[in-house]
Structure formats: structure tokens, C-alpha cells
């Protein structure tokens, strides 16, 4: 089974974000691998270990993505494709999906695994749009993947009424939830080996396409302004005798907050 995993480099959400003139201040931002894509990489590597799957990752970005790709190599991914093209600066999910479609069609993949959303946009669209473009079955929010045979996998998915067990005919796309696994910490040996591995880097022309063809030049929607969210302020914090402070808080909830 050949697996294609998508990996995105995203802003570290743990840090403070500053906004100036409607834009995010770049200075001080740190970037990390999208947490959900890390779950996707772990899922792919586990399928390699359990079922002998071949694993390839694809990432869209620039040379800054290299560290992240080497981390995925250290976790056990076997091949990596980096799509690096300056024309992609204003690409939206649809353009990313077109690029991934082109990468998919150049290979012979049975399964595409993406994280269910990117932690910077929280959009959750790209994997599903990719499946639509490829006309492949797609199951999102997956928490387990089991190989039934060469052409079928069984996944469980967090749906609205409970956990859905779905049987999928390959090739297919799945988007994974963070509940699917705990991504491994790469061992030192993996990290050393990762340093020597090649990363295939292609621009859109080398991929056989162009910014126009993928719709990269004309995004369907674009961010025109960033604003800081209204942050909640810390309220009153009480320490001391449990009986006393709890009674005090309940009184405030009733008479000040008026929730009782």
C-alpha cells in the first residue's frame, strides 16, 4: 500500500500573537509542524510498521519546511516532496488541493492521509476538497485505521451521534483527529539518518502545472484583515478555607453574575 501524507508548517499557537495595522506581526512568530499532520505522519508510519506500507510526505512551502520534513523522516517517513514556488503566496485551500492533486496523480497512491485541520487556520477544508477533485471516497475526523486487505481499510470516525465504523474501498482520502494516536518522539538514530535523506523539491513548472492552472493567482476568498480576539480578563480568584471561599463564590454567582 502506498500512502501520501500531507504536512503543513504552521504558526505555533502556544505563543502570543500580535496584530498591527490589521496584519499579524511576523517578528517573534515561531513555526511548527501542524499537530494534526503529525498525527497523520504517525498513522502512516504505523501502517508501514504493521502492514509494510510505503510512505511519502508532501509539503507546500519553502526551504523553511526542511526542518519539519526531517522530523517526519526521523519519525519514519520514507520519502518527501516539497513544493516550493513563490507564486503560491496567496493560495487558498482550493489551490493547495489542486497542487496535491497533481502530486497524487504523479504517483501511484492508495491512501492519502491529512490532518483534519491546520492549527493556524482551523479551516479543515483542504483534504476534503482534494478528495472531491480526485473523486475519491473521503472520511474525516478518523480515530483509527485498520487494513482489511489490499483494497479496503476500516476506519472509525467521530460523528455526531457517536463513533462510526466505516469500510472504505481504496484509493481514498482520510483526515485524522488528534485522538488517533500519540506521535512518537524521534529517536536519535532516526534524527541522524534524517539529516542525510534527500528531499525532492519541485516548483509548479517541474510539477507540470502553473499558478494559473491551480487557481493560485485568483483565490476564491482572501483574508483582508486580522483583529485580536477579545480576551477575557481574569476575574476574582479566591484562596483559603474551602468552605468559606466556596460559599462566597456561590453568593457572587447568584447575586453578581446572576446565573442562579
Amino acid at each position, binding site marked *: 500500500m502506498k500512502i501520501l501524507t500531507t504536512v503543513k508548517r504552521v504558526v505555533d499557537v502556544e505563543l502570543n500573537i500580535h496584530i498591527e495595522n490589521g496584519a499579524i506581526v511576523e517578528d517573534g512568530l515561531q513555526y511548527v509542524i501542524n499537530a494534526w499532520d503529525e498525527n497523520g505522519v504517525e498513522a502512516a508510519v504505523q501502517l508501514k510498521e504493521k502492514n509494510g506500507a510505503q510512505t511519502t510526505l508532501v509539503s507546500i512551502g519553502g526551504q523553511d519546511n526542511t526542518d519539519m520534513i526531517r522530523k517526519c523522516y526521523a519519525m519514519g517517513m520514507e520519502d518527501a516532496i516539497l513544493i516550493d514556488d513563490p507564486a503560491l503566496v496567496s493560495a487558498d485551500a482550493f489551490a493547495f488541493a489542486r497542487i496535491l492533486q497533481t502530486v497524487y496523480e504523479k504517483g501511484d497512491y492508495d491512501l492519502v492521509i491529512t490532518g483534519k485541520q491546520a492549527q493556524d*487556520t482551523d*479551516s479543515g477544508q483542504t483534504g476534503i476538497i482534494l478528495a472531491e477533485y480526485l473523486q475519491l471516497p473521503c472520511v474525516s475526523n478518523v480515530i483509527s485505521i485498520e487494513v482489511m486487505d489490499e483494497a479496503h481499510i476500516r476506519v472509525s470516525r467521530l460523528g455526531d*451521534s457517536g463513533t462510526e465504523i466505516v469500510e472504505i474501498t481504496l484509493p481514498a482520502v482520510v483526515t485524522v483527529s488528534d485522538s488517533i494516536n500519540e506521535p512518537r518522539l524521534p529517536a536519535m538514530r532516526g534524527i541522524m539518518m534524517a539529516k542525510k535523506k534527500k528531499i525532492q523539491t519541485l516548483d509548479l513548472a517541474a510539477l507540470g502545472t502553473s499558478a494559473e492552472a491551480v487557481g493560485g493567482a485568483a483565490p476564491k476568498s*482572501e483574508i483582508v484583515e486580522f483583529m485580536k*480576539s477579545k480576551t477575557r480578563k481574569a476575574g*476574582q480568584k479566591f484562596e483559603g478555607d474551602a468552605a468559606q471561599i466556596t460559599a462566597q463564590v456561590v453568593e457572587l*454567582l*447568584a447575586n453578581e453574575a446572576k446565573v442562579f
Partner: protein
Amino acid sequence: MAKILVIADIKEGVLKGSTAELLSKAKTLSAQTAVVAIGSNVESLVADLAAAGSDTQYIADDKSLELFSAGPYAACVVAAAQQFEADMIWFGFSEAGKAVAPRVAAQLNAACATEIIDVTLEGEKIQVVRPAIAGKVIQRIQVNTQTLVAVVRAGAFAANPGITGTQNMVKLSIPAPDLKAVIKQILSDASGEIDLADADIVVSVGRGARDQAGIDLVRELARDLSAGFGSSRAMVDGGFMAHNKQVGQTGKIVAPTLYMAMGISGAIQHLAGMTGSKTILAVNKDPEAPIFNVADYGIVGDLFEVIPILRQEIKKIRG
């Protein structure tokens, strides 16, 4: 006049509140409204769907649609959108909505925005507002296409009971089932407990509860208040709480009148799911826990000690 198609949120034969919320907002934007209801035995909801604020009800009613399947559901929405000539297609917040919306957008060559908290229409220009970066920033997005597909964040719009519609049912043809992704079973997590999305008070449990005894203690508090019972990710991953109880960036986003965080430290991913609450009470042993940065009232203490007192004091006030 813009045309807005709302996808009805139906769970176990009941029309959920988000449908009326989305239709109220649509009518507030002076739009012509329609609704699409997909499932089994949904035709019986036409009157409710009209009362919620829709002037046309597209119905796809068939046993084959009883269980959610993204492909056929997307096909029904696309059919309704094309017949209605919708400018905007809105889904309420649900896993089904999140799975279907991007497909619909791709098929219609429309823009797609998820987790939106506001929509504005200036002539034909559509703009949406949505949170990003775990809720730390708000994005204002300009839509460049004629049509927008959106998934609306829970509680973003308010239902106006004064807004209603007219009954005008249109039957949709039933799409073929998706033979390549077949649901074999649903392990229901219906616990008979209140749906977090509908609860006016939510009590959530975190790692501070330690084990089943702690969970049961917090559950008792939730029961006293007829509250929704939620969880941080830690207790879900620990196997103590079902996945559908998780409040957070990738779980449920809730905005109740009162949110009680019991033994929850306040990781960013959790905060993203509840900082919209009107009043927040937190109980945690650690005075430095980040939850206290957003709580209106914080009690530094062990929840095993505090909860019995809390229940007692609340009973005194509420009777």
C-alpha cells in the same frame, strides 16, 4: 435580494436549534431563505422547518439517507443549491456539516469558510468573520466568488422567534449511496445526558478529577444543575469520558450562560472551546493554572473538597 440556503440540523428526528438561528440571521440580512432536510422521516418536519424561518423546504427523505454519508448528503445539498440558485449555503456546526461543506464548495466552484461568527452583505460583496489560531485572532475574509458555502460556529447567530417562513415543499431526487465508504455500525455515545450544544450550564471535568470517583463526583454536580457534562481532552484520552464530551478547539465549542471548569488547567486548545461562555467558574488546586486567567470566579482548592460544599451551597440558593 440574496438567496440563502440553510442545511437543517436534524438529530434523532428532532430539528436542532441551529436551524432557526441560521434562518433568523438570513432573514435579518433581508435574504430569501430555503432549507434542505436530508435523512429518513424528515418530511414530517416541513411545518417546523417553515416555522423556523424558511420559505422553501427541499426534502430528501429516504431510508438510504438515515445514516450520515458525506457523498450522498453533499449531492442533496448541491441539488437544492442549484434549484434554489443559492448565493450562500450555510451549515450549522456539526461533524456532518464540516465533512460536507468543502465538497459542496468544490462541486459548485464556490468559496468555503468554516467556523464563521458573522456574515455581512454589501451589495453583492460577501464578507465573513471567523476565529483562527486557536481563537487568538479574528479574520475578516472577502469572498471573491458569487457563491459562499459556510459552516457557522455554534451559537454565532441568535434565533428570533418572531421570524417565520412559509411551507413550500420541494422533493429532491434521492442520490445513489456511496458504495466506497459504507457505515457498518455506529457506537452510540448517547448517554441520555444533555447535549453540550443545547445546555445553558456546562460543567466540565479535567485531570484534577484523577479517576472514576472524581468523574462521578463532578457528574453529580452537573446533575444537580441539570447541566451539560463536558470534559477536557485529558479525560477523553484517558478513556474516562466519551469523545463527544470533549470541549475544545477540535471538540465541542460551547458558549453557555455558566461554564464550570473542574480540575481543568486551561490549555489553549480547551480555552478555544469555552471562552465564549457568559460566566466562567474554575476550581483548580494550582493557583497558577492558566484557567484562572479567563475565569470570572476562581476557587483555588481540591475539587474533592470543594464540590460537596459547592453542591450544598447551590442547593441552599436554588432550593
